[in-house]
């Protein structure tokens, strides 16, 4: 069974809610997904996951200088190399994500050869497009209406 580790950093609960939706969606598709905060997750344990999804709320000054905040960066600094996992990033935002994903990718450095998903959600809930992107990322089938 495919395994997924969803790890989030949430300041107000919005990103946590999204992370839980992502985990629930993956489980519904037959993926063994765990959802933990950056405070609870063991960075070393991510080395064995097939899918790694790392999420953080978008911090910034209205429409400039968007960045992941310190608790997320601290967690990523402790991550081992993830050469075999498919790695995805997600964020919640209110206005724009701007430099959020570039900064998240930069923080990952050489731990992963590439990032396979960048998912941004305004608010806390997955959209249909977001679910479809997750399905492609996880290599599972998407239901069509």
């Amino acid at each position: 069974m495919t395994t997924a580790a969803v790890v989030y950093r949430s300041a107000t609960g919005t990103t946590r809610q999204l992370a839980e939706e992502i985990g629930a969606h993956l489980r519904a598709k037959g993926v063994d997904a765990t959802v933990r905060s950056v405070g609870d997750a063991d960075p070393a344990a991510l080395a064995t996951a097939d899918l790694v999804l790392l999420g953080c709320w978008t911090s910034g000054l209205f429409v400039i200088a968007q960045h992941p905040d310190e608790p997320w960066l601290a967690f990523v600094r402790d991550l081992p190399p993830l050469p075999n996992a498919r790695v995805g990033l997600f964020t919640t935002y209110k206005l724009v994500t701007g430099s959020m994903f570039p900064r998240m990718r930069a923080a990952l450095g050489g731990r992963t050869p590439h990032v396979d998903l960048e998912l941004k959600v305004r608010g806390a809930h997955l959209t249909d497009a977001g679910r479809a992107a997750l399905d492609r990322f996880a290599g599972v089938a998407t239901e069509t209406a």
Partner: protein
Amino acid sequence: MPTSMNQVDEFLALKRIAVVGVSRNPKELSYTLWQELRQRRYDAIPVNPSTTEIDGVPCYPSVADIVPAVDGALIVTTAGVAEQVLEQCAAAAIRKVWLYGGLGGGATSDVTIRTADRLGLEAVSGLCPYMFLPGTPAFHVMHAWGKKLTGSYPKAG
């Protein structure tokens, strides 16, 4: 005596902290503050006599019940309840406490400050921990600026 920056730094350098008065409601400040500390890798232990767990984490009725003991206690109750919590902290040999202060006063009052002093506790009072956490959200940065403008931000020493 006003809280100094050293007292703030010393409290935030603790690893295992009781958070007294954590609500089960994720919209309450006490809950988000507890989660914030957990996400910053503090061993933050919830204390609330009304429940035995919050989000699957064991919750204790009193600081005296926590084993192993905590290094300090962040008190996010009303000032009335905080008086009793301070007595419990002293009895449990918890010397460092933080009397949350924010909108509406929180756990800080003249009485709780005097009680902490009488019990020989090292108390941070009238302040919100969010203001001092690295990379804290903008709202809390603005709160700190407001404190600096009014001269109520802790000074070095």
